[in-house]
């Protein structure tokens, strides 16, 4: 008995890197690949001459950085939707708020280099005849304070929204509609000039970040690399959370919230904090996105954006962190390609993709992939069993073998 106990203890200690049970749930391979690609792409941009066939253009670097921030956004949606069953159709709002916080910081870095040359006010405020900065722009010239706001503003909004919604036990479609309403309300608000965020045009014409020129190759590469690092970091953190007992509670809430309550879990608290965590990841993604694309405007709040994120996650495979990331990367690559050929057709293509995935790949691409590898494993095991069954058949299974057999059955039935 004590032997079997210690085998369980070992099992749970080592599962951080084993990706217990989930298809594609392993952390290390993805992080290694991500960082390797980042280093290679960065080196190819900075060290190789433009004539080299392996040279990676700065345009490509920026594009990759943009994809990676989308991947982070997808990760945020997956945490809340795939694991907790809360279909948020408003995560674009947290992304945009994070982006606006970064945008305000970047605006303040312009200083007197604007078109109107005002020492402090951004161009659009001069244009509106404003005489001083609104109070909520104060302090935003400090990088640390701006970064704090990147997290605090969306985090607080998510907390208040979640507290109200989850406490009154709003779930399902109603909750999704509320999240759409949230992002739509913000869209309308940010369109107004009186909001003090540049209205229709948003914030743009950024010059530099922390004193580094935003147009230079090195800054671009650095931003891309930082995005990759943050993606890796949020990926590892999310994985750790989902493997902890809290992660199990979250999945339990998804599959039987009433049951979880009867076990003594205050499920609304769990949902609120997970929602806040997810909103903060989305906000970081937004803050990394803005300096790379060079603009943030109210369009980022549009409800359709939030729906697109959900489609990325569905295509990749919800409920697996890696699936969300892969889905975001692939769909956005396809979008870049597709819009170059047929700019007006993209929404139709996206809709069709969503329908196809929902009908034929309920577990997304990662689900298909893990099914294939499983089949392969099963086949290999079967042939191995055939070879060794002669000598092993009368020996009782060791506990370790039992445990791993158990894990496999688990995987097979996921």
């Amino acid at each position, binding site marked *: 008995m004590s032997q079997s106990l210690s085998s369980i*203890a070992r099992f749970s200690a080592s599962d951080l890197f084993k990706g217990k049970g989930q298809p594609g749930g392993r952390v290390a391979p993805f992080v290694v690949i991500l960082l390797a690609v980042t280093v290679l792409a960065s080196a190819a941009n900075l060290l190789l001459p433009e004539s080299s066939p392996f040279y990676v253009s700065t345009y490509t670097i920026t594009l990759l950085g943009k994809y990676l921030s989308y991947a982070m956004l997808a990760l945020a949606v997956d945490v809340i939707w795939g694991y907790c069953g809360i279909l948020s159709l408003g995560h674009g709002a947290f992304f945009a708020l994070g982006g606006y916080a970064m945008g305000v910081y970047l605006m303040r870095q312009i200083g007197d280099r604007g078109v109107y040359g005002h020492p402090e006010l951004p161009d659009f405020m001069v244009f509106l005849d404003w005489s001083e900065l609104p109070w909520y722009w104060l302090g935003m010239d400090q990088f640390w304070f701006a970064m704090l706001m990147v997290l605090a503003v969306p985090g607080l909004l998510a907390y208040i929204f979640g507290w109200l919604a989850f406490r009154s036990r709003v779930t399902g479609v109603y909750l999704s509609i509320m999240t759409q309403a949230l992002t739509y309300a913000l869209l309308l608000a940010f369109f107004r000039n009186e909001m003090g965020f540049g209205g229709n045009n948003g914030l743009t014409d950024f010059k530099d970040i922390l004193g580094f020129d935003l147009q230079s190759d090195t800054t671009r590469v650095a931003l891309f690399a930082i995005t990759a690092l943050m993606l890796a970091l949020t990926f590892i953190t999310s994985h750790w*959370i989902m493997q902890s*007992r809290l992660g199990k509670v979250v999945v339990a809430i998804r*599959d039987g919230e009433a049951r979880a309550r009867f076990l003594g879990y205050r499920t609304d*608290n769990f949902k609120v904090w997970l929602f806040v965590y997810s909103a903060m990841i989305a906000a970081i993604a937004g803050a990394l996105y803005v300096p790379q694309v060079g603009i943030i405007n109210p369009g980022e709040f549009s409800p359709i954006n939030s729906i697109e994120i959900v489609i990325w996650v569905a295509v990749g495979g919800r409920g697996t962190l890696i699936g969300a990331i892969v889905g975001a990367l692939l769909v956005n690559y396809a979008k870049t390609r597709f819009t170059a050929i047929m700019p007006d057709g993209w929404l139709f293509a996206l809709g069709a993709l969503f329908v196809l995935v929902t009908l034929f790949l309920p577990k997304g691409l990662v689900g298909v992939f893990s099914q294939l590898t499983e089949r392969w494993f099963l086949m290999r095991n079967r042939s191995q069993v055939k070879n060794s069954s002669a000598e092993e058949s009368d020996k009782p299974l060791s506990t370790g073998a039992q445990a791993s057999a158990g894990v496999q059955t688990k995987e097979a039935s996921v």
Partner: protein
Amino acid sequence: MSALENLTAEGKEMLRRDQVWPFLMPKQQAVDVSHQVILYVEGLNLSFDGFKALNDLNLYINDGELRCLIGANGAGKTTLMDVITGKTQCDSGTVYFGQNHNLLERSEPEIAELGIGRKFQKPTVFEAHTVFDNLELSLKTNKGVMPTLLARLTPTQLDRIDQVLEIIGLKEQRFLLAGALSHGQKQWLEIGMLLVSEPRLLLIDEPVAGMTAQETERTAELLTSLAGEHTVIVVEHDMEFVRSIARTVTVLHQGSVLAEGTMDQVQNNKDVIEVYLGEEA
């Protein structure tokens, strides 16, 4: 001057390290069962759109008792459990756990925390989790967000889970997904989830539905062995089963108590024969 001294004295009192500030004191108190009764249900009324599911229902359960609740379909047995566990609000009446805990003003998690565990009529286990994880989630631990995030299984908890796995006979299936279990095994797992949480009072709704005769027998043994240390309320339609475990039986009919007593007393009760057992005979 003395006022100041008083103030500092009070301040010192406030900062005493061997005491917890009143507002930080856990509100939890032990269940007061000095009158041997652990559950008081009095004058409970509940109607769904005019239909009286519970009708002036009175029920007292003694500490350590094993009580069977029987009654025809729709008699209100499950609804009664819903009210006790905080799932459904009643229209009027009182429900006390011991003498000191008014259950009607508490939420489901608070009621669970007090030590009331429940098995549902339709087995509800977390299908995407393994048998082991289902039990881990049910452990009697701090269920706050942060403690859950940082939780690690202690050797005692592992032992407890192992014991329960042994009791419910799912040792071999510990790493199997709960969704892959048979109906009877799910029933057992749910009972196991109750056991690891070490509740004072167990509410068990139709535990043997879908079980084989052998499994039913083992369930009967298990439930009888639990009584004494725990208080158990069992709802069941299987009369054979009820007869094998029952000491006191309460018959519900149209939302109120029709009869109460030993199995023989109840079976010979005229009203009961008329409305319930009569149907079968």
